[in-house]
């Protein structure tokens, strides 16, 4: 282990632009990765950051209107479910959003579900559901619904769809609390803007919000940690005098493919979630791999086995039911394996010692 740490320190100390990718880790692991990236002038990115980055950029431009999972579950009278991702990510999502018992909620409407740009599928019993899709693409139906909500004219050749859209728009205006549920990884930026504009229109007269699904692999926890550390979300570079964020330029995979990055720290150490490896795997770029699973790596790569957060050690990670970072006890007591934070901390110390020598 000690020699692996030393080799990792040597490898990283020589790097011109190391990129910290994967980042399937807990908040402590993210804190340590950010500290090391700042020390080395590297880049940080999370392996499931497409949606996070897109949502971050849209928010920076026009703001956001989030509701917590608990508020939606207890108080939304109309849930607009957009796309397939939300249910792919959590098969029980609708059961959770339509529980048997709720806190007092505004208005007298019966709770309703509107499924947009996806098949209705299995829905909770007793919940009136409308499917809006037909042969149109998701961006098209979202745009139609947005127009109908604002009572603006729209055209569609599908008369049945047109009727449904009109009535859905009316229902949204008459809702006491309408919430749009989506995964930002599934929606392009213009669609995200359309959804947010619709909410901002509705709140002039009633209550409305969005529930944006958090990224897998503690993507939201890592992102929040990055923001309180340096003021910016993931895909941030510490190579210059001040941190710089750019969702295109500092995407880990692009930096690896283009050869701009000359070292990779790959972190995959979270129970129940597997980081998709960068397409070129670890080949060609000197890599330090911290993983809780067996890893195929190149001969010169440094592989360090670490514990899986939540399984092997207690961890703080983003928990969707509380829409925030929570603490989870380890499922197994066996924790001889080091944590990501331990390992990165030690590598940092070795680099400091090397610098001082």
């Amino acid at each position, binding site marked *: 282990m000690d020699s692996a740490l030393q080799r990792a320190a040597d490898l990283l100390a020589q790097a011109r632009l190391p990129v910290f990718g994967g980042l399937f880790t807990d908040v402590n692991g993210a804190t340590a990765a950010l500290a090391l990236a700042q020390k080395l002038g590297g880049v940080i990115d999370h392996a499931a950051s497409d949606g996070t980055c897109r949502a971050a950029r849209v928010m920076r431009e026009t703001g956001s209107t989030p509701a917590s999972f608990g508020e939606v579950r207890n108080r939304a009278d109309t849930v607009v479910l957009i796309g397939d991702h939300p249910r792919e990510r959590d098969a029980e999502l609708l059961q959770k959003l339509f529980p048997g018992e709720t806190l*007092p909620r505004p208005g007298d409407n019966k709770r309703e579900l509107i499924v947009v740009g996806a098949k209705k599928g299995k829905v909770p019993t007793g919940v009136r559901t409308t499917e809006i899709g037909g042969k149109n693409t998701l961006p098209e139906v979202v745009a139609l619904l947005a127009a109908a909500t604002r009572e603006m004219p729209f055209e569609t050749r599908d008369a049945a769809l047109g009727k449904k859209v009109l009535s859905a728009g009316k229902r949204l205006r008459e809702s006491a609390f309408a919430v749009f549920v989506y995964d930002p990884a599934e929606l392009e930026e213009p669609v995200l803007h359309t959804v947010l504009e619709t909410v901002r229109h509705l709140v002039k007269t009633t209550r409305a919000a969005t529930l944006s699904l958090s990224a897998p692999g503690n993507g939201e926890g890592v992102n929040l940690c990055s923001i309180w550390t340096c003021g910016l979300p993931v895909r941030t570079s510490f190579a210059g005098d001040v941190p710089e964020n750019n969702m295109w330029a500092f995407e880990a995979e692009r930096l690896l493919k283009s050869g701009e990055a000359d070292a990779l720290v790959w972190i995959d150490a979270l129970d129940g979630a597997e980081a998709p490896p960068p397409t070129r795997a670890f080949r060609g770029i000197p890599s330090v791999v911290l993983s809780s699973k067996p890893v195929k790596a190149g001969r010169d790569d440094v592989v360090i086995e670490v514990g899986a957060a939540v399984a092997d050690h207690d961890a703080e990670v983003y928990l969707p039911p509380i829409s925030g970072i929570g603490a989870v006890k380890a499922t197994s007591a066996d924790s001889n394996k080091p944590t990501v934070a331990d390992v990165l901390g030690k590598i940092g110390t070795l680099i400091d010692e090397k610098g001082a020598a």
Partner: protein
Amino acid sequence: MLIQLKGGRVIDPAHNRDAVGDIYLENGRIVEKPDGREPDEVHDVSSKIVMAGAIDVHSHIAGTNVTLGRQLMPELPLIAAAEGQPILPSTAQWGAYATGIRYAEMGYTTVIEPAMIPTHAIQAHKEMASIPIIDVAGLVVLGNDDYTLNLLRKGNVKSDELKDYVAWTLAHSKALGLKVINAGGSEAFKFNARTFDLDEEVPEYGVTSRGIVEAMQQVVADLGVPHPPHVHTNNLGIAGNVETAVATLEATQGHPIHLAHIQFYGYGKEGDKGFSSGAPALMEAINKHKNATVDVGQVLFGQTVTISGDVLRQFDGRRAANPKKWVINQAEGNGTGVVPYNYKKKSFVNALQWAIGLEIFLLAEDLWRVLFSTDHPNGALFTRYPEIFHLLMDRDERARWFDSLPEASRQVSGLAGISRELTLSELAIITRAAPAKVLGMTDRGHLAPGAVADVAVYTEQKNKTKMFAAADLVFKSGKVVVRKGNVVNISWGRCFHVDPGFDRQIEKRVHSFYDTYYGADPRWFGVTETFSDRPDRFATIRCAR
């Protein structure tokens, strides 16, 4: 190691001290001058000003709400720097690390985060633990949460259970005290109310805002929590709201209360524009209610972002967003509103707000009850405190600013008629001694033996902005952390909290509540001793009972 600070002008209003003398530090504490022992280290501070480390009673430095603000406005430090505000043009400047550094450089050693969300206490504590040097504490927000409201439901008051619930929440989130933000107003917002007054009832629950605050005052008094309920009342920022603030004070019935950022409630509705200074009326009430303390929430001109759990008020305020973007986050309890704002010197209202804040300080009969704050970042960034100290201590400086305000604002402001200049001792009261007293942190805010060795040394200058922007020397727990305005040594502070006892039955009830309504386990958001790998991270402030 015995350290001597030799020959400085020691200003310690807690002990009526303002005289040249020595201070001795050993093992992280201030000690008596030891007999027959030579100090190991002597700092010649002759002709310098020596004060206790400063304490900020209300500054939004950590947690979900602040990070939401950072997400919306990463460019805040860049805009502020371009305007000439004292902050470096880097997004990292309003990250956790820079926060500790900049506070320390100004001589601050303890800062209170006033709005921890119970279910997000973990994030607040994670962020606070990333802030170097300063000690911290959080106030936890209740009063718009369904558990509390259900207990206060009309005719359903089970005061013991509320007491247990508040105690459990304080302990579970490791908070120093209780914060109440627009009691009932955020909950009413969820039922589509867009205004909410002191005597309005929360839909479905029937309890009034006044009822919630009174119940919380009673509970906090019963639990013996040293810091009284820290209250952000209704109608913030609205013309004529001084009446609400005065009514809230009248309603306190002698129980202690702390009213936050009172400047935002100091508004009358006189004059052509229907907006006037309510400072004289407000200060008359505050001067009279001896159990009330306040912090001011001074505003300064320039770019900032407002971050508040008063989601109803922020929703209304979204129209004034500058730049034009805002966040309304609807969540358990209060939720959050984030609205960027630029206070303009040329604006009638903003100019008057600036003057009202200063009037409040300067009309205070008892500065022990009128504490310094800007409600960072809501009124101004904390990096600008020295400018405000300057305004309070130097009437020429005040006049210089005042003369550049719009004529209409000058005509209706009483500020020009106030010649008072705060003394160094008075400044030490509002930035050290009084916050410590109000928070129940008896080991700080003063320089008597036994106090923690948090000491700030300044070079006396006519220009108070310069004087307080960069301390000559700062000791944190007896170690030098700042020299000549620059941090020279990174240390990590402690986090203070109370731990009132409660009947363990409450744990089962709370568990069942979260399980039923949220599909969540309260242990997920409990802050435990093992939370930090720094062994002495947490310290308990004793409750009176």
